[in-house]
């Protein structure tokens, strides 16, 4: 049968960020697919070598717009390992609070994008309206809706007072109700289920073989979550569920992400009510003695991995960033095998690509 090549990207209404897919169709089915990245490569890892650690803190926050805080946090954790610094517990709580708020905002953003790509604009509007709550809270805490610059090496730059805690707790209650409604729609709306169930299936064995991370892995049954597994404060003091699923299709990923958002709201509540007193930062020296360290965190899309090697000066010798989208991207040819053209948009949306993260 004759093959048609459909280019998706680098510019396409489906994609938030530029990436090029070449889909070879036989009739309506995908026979082969290939991908080309690098359209938003900014050379951040190389730029890091020419800037001080403090400047790099602001640079790595701009690897991604959606998960900016987690990049900065992981970088800080890595440099603090290099320095042998112990961050005050209150600072760890504030960092985790923003990480969880970022997780909520990222999952709601993704839900809206998926809904828009399957033609359900109403859910796009509702999800992004609910996302405004988390963005407003983050703005109140840090001054920025999308990039927060809350971290300093050694802690966070400002504290939360009890009035802020109270107002945030109230808004979290409202967010809880709205998330419950969205979760209800995802579970029961038949047209949404019809478009996403059984599409983009990734089995547990395949998820393991391709080292998938994040909600993509958890939806296939791979129970990994660095918040629970890495045992770093403050998560080692909190108990929370890690939602998993076994189907491994886009609908399972939708369920996992929405349930994770609900868990994150509860985590935010626990973090706010259980926050210990104390300072919010310790002083960090400017020059870092020669050493190498790694830092890992659970970003909204999965495990983000930082490696930093210092050489005794105030600029790092090497910063290596492995973002969660990279291993998930590799699973795409598997997921796209044999799906129809209409499902391509669902599969691409279901992986929650953050190309800026992947390209750096």
């Amino acid at each position, binding site marked *: 049968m004759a093959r048609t090549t459909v280019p998706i990207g680098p510019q396409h209404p489906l994609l938030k960020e530029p990436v090029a897919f070449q889909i070879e169709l036989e009739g309506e089915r995908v026979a082969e697919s290939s991908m080309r990245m690098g359209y938003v490569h900014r050379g951040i890892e190389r730029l890091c070598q020419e800037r001080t650690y403090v400047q790099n803190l602001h640079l790595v926050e701009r690897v991604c717009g959606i998960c900016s805080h987690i990049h900065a946090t992981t970088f800080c954790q890595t440099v603090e390992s290099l320095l042998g610094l112990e961050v005050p517990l209150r600072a760890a709580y504030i960092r985790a609070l923003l990480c969880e708020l970022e997780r909520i905002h990222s999952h709601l953003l993704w839900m809206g994008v998926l*809904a828009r790509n*399957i*033609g*359900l604009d*109403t859910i796009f*509007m509702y999800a992004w309206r609910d996302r405004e709550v988390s963005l407003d809270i983050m703005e109140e805490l840090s001054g920025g809706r999308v990039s927060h610059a809350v971290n300093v090496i050694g802690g966070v730059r400002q504290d939360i007072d009890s009035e802020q805690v109270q107002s945030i707790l109230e808004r979290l209650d409202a967010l809880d109700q709205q998330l419950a409604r969205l979760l209800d729609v995802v579970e029961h709306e038949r*047209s949404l289920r019809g478009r996403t169930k059984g599409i983009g299936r990734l089995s547990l064995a395949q998820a393991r073989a391709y080292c998938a991370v994040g909600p993509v892995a958890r939806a296939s049954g791979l129970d990994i979550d660095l918040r629970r597994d890495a045992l770093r404060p403050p998560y080692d003091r909190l108990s929370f569920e890690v939602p998993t699923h076994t189907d491994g299709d886009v609908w399972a990923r939708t369920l996992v992400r929405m349930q994770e958002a609900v868990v994150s709201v509860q985590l935010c509540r626990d973090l706010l009510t259980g926050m210990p007193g104390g300072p919010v930062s310790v002083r960090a020296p400017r020059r870092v003695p020669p050493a190498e360290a790694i830092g890992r965190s659970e970003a909204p899309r999965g495990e983000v991995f930082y490696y930093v090697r210092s050489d005794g000066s105030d600029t790092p010798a090497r910063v290596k960033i492995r973002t969660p989208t990279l291993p998930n991207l590799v699973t795409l040819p598997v997921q796209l095998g044999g799906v129809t053209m209409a499902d*391509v*948009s669902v599969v691409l949306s279901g992986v929650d690509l953050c190309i800026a993260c992947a390209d750096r």
Partner: protein
Amino acid sequence: MIVLLKMLVFPGFAFLFAAALAFDWIDRRMIALWHGRVGPPWYQPLADFVKLLAKEDIVTEGTHSVAAALLPIVSLASVLTASCYIPVGGTVGTSFEGDLIVVLFLLSLPALAYFLAGWVSTGVYSILGGHRSLLQYFSYEVPFLMAVACPAILSGSWSIATIAQAQARTAWHAAMLPVGFALALIGLIGKLKRDPLDIPKAKSEVVAGPLTDFSGRKLALWHLTMNVQTVLGIFLLVNLYFGESRFLDRMPALPVFGLKSVVTLLAMSTASALYARLRIDQLMDLGWRVLSPLALIQILGALWIGG
């Protein structure tokens, strides 16, 4: 002279142009209401039309330029011709026995033109969209035609004006043939390529389908055709299923007709807001396994009620 005025002004071209813009505005406001937003102001559809007329008209290399120029004109002409036979609040341009068949034929010409627009364009998205539009056509058109035939069978006439008037003696056909009305509405959603059946022009899949490479004046005419088709499709359904009624004959005909049309439009806008887009194979499944058998049963029902 009277006929010319009827054709050009009311219920002809000028009225249709205004109604097309008004219905587009109502549709967008209703969907915005569902979305929790405000929606565009009343002059937005007019502004969009004027803006498109002013834009550069690009014909991509390899596209058959004569066909690309003629297709939007032909489809607009066919829907405007169909307007001659569809009564608006009791006033009709002209009518004869069998004009329902003519109107159905004329209203399905834009679907063919839409497919050809994708065929003569060179882009992959256009051709894919064109394929899908034909597949969709075969899925919704059969139940739609059968559902539209039911009122004709029931009232014993194939003239739209007569069918509308016949309901004054009995009752609204929608009350006697509710399944038929539902099927006709679903068929109309497919015909107008509205969400959840906007498969040929699914933005996240085929960018804009057959119209991807059209811009400027041609695109303005395409949009106008679709808006006029919306208006005429709704008018057709209202005449066939919610025609004249003896309970409402004291009230002025045109506002009542307008109200019925707007309510039908609001129902279609709600369907747009509530459902995700179907996949083409899901639509074909729905069309042949559910809608067509139901339409057949409804025809039998119409025959039985009609006596």
